[in-house]
């Protein structure tokens, strides 16, 4: 009974470590997917050279106009260029319930902005009319921020804005934005420059040619990135931080779990001295005994690993929001369980089992038959 309890507790300890390990990977994956899925590979974003995000960027009107006349830009069904000059501003809004303020991205958009982002669709209300003080909010913002629901009002840029639509952007970062007419927002925030220019390539292969021309044009201090690359760059710092934090916790916890596994395996060996002696007397080789105890340790690790991954899989139901340090805005994302995460987690738990079981298993294998039979 005591042996069963020790085994269950050890497997639980390993499950906890694997849970933390898997959750960390899921968090990083979820964050990357959210940010990377925000971009479309045919889309190109043009920002000021050296700026890491739209928030730090500034594209003068003249420069935006030069970009607009480049031949690589696709044309929409209405014969207008699929290009949007956008403004990104950070403001502070109180959250529902707690009233705690958090940063929110306000995006000044053009008529092509929605077309350029196929992941974004209106789910409630209507689009804001150009030239008006109307805005639409991402589903995540509408849910979590005071005054961001449909029909409600927000005050920023010294004006009152009416939320006339709610849009859903799937798992992308746009869900955490508020969109309004770019010219109205530039006036309200007294911004003379755009933050970025976004457009679709007519031919996806023409990106390099466009990039070279734009970045070597002496009139322009701009750089061009494919949209997924841009968002991947943004996720890097946060992913790294979450990864380091998670792995530090995992390493500390795993040391405890390995010691736990070792104690359990030592107790198992001690409890089975008679069995070891008997099996060796019957003709089983040292290597068979070693393999048997190692298998048991690995099984312990496997059970812990499966339990940990099973528990971690429920984290997918949770959406968390945090500060995106590249844009200083609120970003909501979910934990994401992938096959790679499952494999890594199970591999890690097997490794813990192996580390905990190796020394006791070697001891069991090295035991003298006579001593083992005498001890029993």
């Amino acid at each position: 009974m005591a042996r069963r309890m020790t085994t269950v507790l050890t497997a639980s300890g390993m499950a906890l470590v694997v849970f933390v390990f898997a959750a960390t990977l899921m968090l990083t994956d979820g964050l990357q997917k959210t940010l990377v899925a925000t971009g479309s590979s045919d889309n190109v974003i043009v920002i000021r050279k050296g700026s890491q995000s739209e928030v730090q960027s500034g594209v003068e009107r003249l420069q935006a106009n030069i970009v607009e006349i480049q031949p690589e830009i696709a044309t929409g069904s209405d014969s207008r260029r699929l290009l949007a000059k956008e403004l990104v501003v950070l403001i502070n809004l109180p959250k529902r319930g707690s009233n705690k303020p958090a940063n929110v991205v306000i995006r000044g958009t053009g008529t092509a902005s929605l077309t350029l982002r196929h992941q974004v669709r209106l789910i409630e209300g209507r689009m804001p009319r150009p030239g008006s003080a109307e805005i639409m909010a991402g589903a995540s913002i509408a849910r979590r921020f005071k005054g961001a629901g449909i029909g409600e009002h927000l005050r920023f840029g010294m004006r009152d804005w009416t939320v006339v639509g709610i849009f859903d952007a799937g798992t992308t970062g746009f869900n955490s934005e508020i969109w309004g007419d770019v010219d109205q927002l530039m006036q309200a925030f007294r911004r003379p420059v755009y933050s970025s220019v976004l457009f679709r390539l007519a031919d996806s292969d023409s990106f390099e040619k466009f990039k070279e021309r734009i970045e070597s044009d002496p009139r322009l201090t701009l750089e061009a990135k494919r949209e997924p690359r841009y968002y991947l760059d943004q996720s890097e710092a946060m992913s790294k931080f979450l990864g380091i934090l998670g792995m530090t916790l995992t390493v500390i916890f795993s040391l405890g779990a390995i010691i736990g596994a070792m104690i359990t395996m030592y107790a198992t060996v001690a409890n089975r001295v008679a069995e070891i002696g008997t099996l060796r007397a019957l003709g089983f080789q040292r290597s068979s005994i070693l393999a048997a105890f190692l298998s048991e340790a690995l099984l312990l690790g496997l059970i812990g690993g499966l339990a940990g991954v099973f528990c971690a899989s429920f984290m997918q139901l949770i959406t968390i929001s945090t500060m995106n340090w590249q844009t200083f805005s609120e970003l909501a994302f979910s934990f994401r369980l992938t096959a790679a995460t499952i494999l890594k987690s199970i591999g890690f738990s097997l490794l813990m089992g192996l580390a905990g079981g190796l020394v006791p298993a070697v001891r069991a294998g090295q035991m003298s038959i006579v001593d083992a039979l005498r001890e029993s």
Partner: protein
Amino acid sequence: MESETGIVTIRNVTKSYRRGSQVVPVLEDISFGIRSGEFLALMGPSGSGKSTLLNLIAGIDKVDSGSISIGGCEITTLSDSELAGWRAVNVGFVFQFYNLIPVLTAYENVELPLLLTRLTRRERREHVEAALDIVSLSDRMDHRPSQLSGGQQQRVAIARAVVTDPAILVADEPTGDLDRVSAGEILSLMDHLVRDFQKTIIMVTHDPRAAEKAHVIRHLEKGLLTDG
């Protein structure tokens, strides 16, 4: 010379143990032989070296000097790994406290030594059933050790010892943990194995009643054979 006859030949065997810096002699210059199909009892007071001698004959301990030949095989020259393979084929063990694996059934316990052979599952089943039949426990093959009496557990242990059909059975106080009736049954069973299956049994015992069943009794005292 007696040591030249039979299935087991023991020549000038010496064994000592080290206790800290002290060397404690256990067996000194032991020589004798055991004939095939003989039931031999080793008797002597505690610490006389009888269990050590049994362990040396069974190939689970090593001599300091001298040699032990069993069925023509010089076991004192075998490596650890070779000895393990030799034991699996040539020796059956019966322990005082049965030493059955508690989580396995009687059938699985008896099957254990056969896992080291190349027998198929079906052949193993035939062997196990035959062994359990010899010890009259065919109806208890699905019971775990905890569901069996001491006498029944020892019978399962004897079935495990004979399942590979070894020439030699070594028994260390096989009746030491049993009541008089069960002890009698076990001794009768061992006698049956000698008479009907031509097994050679070497038994360590304190019990003169158990020793009475043996064909030959050897006495050890302070590491020396006192009868010859």
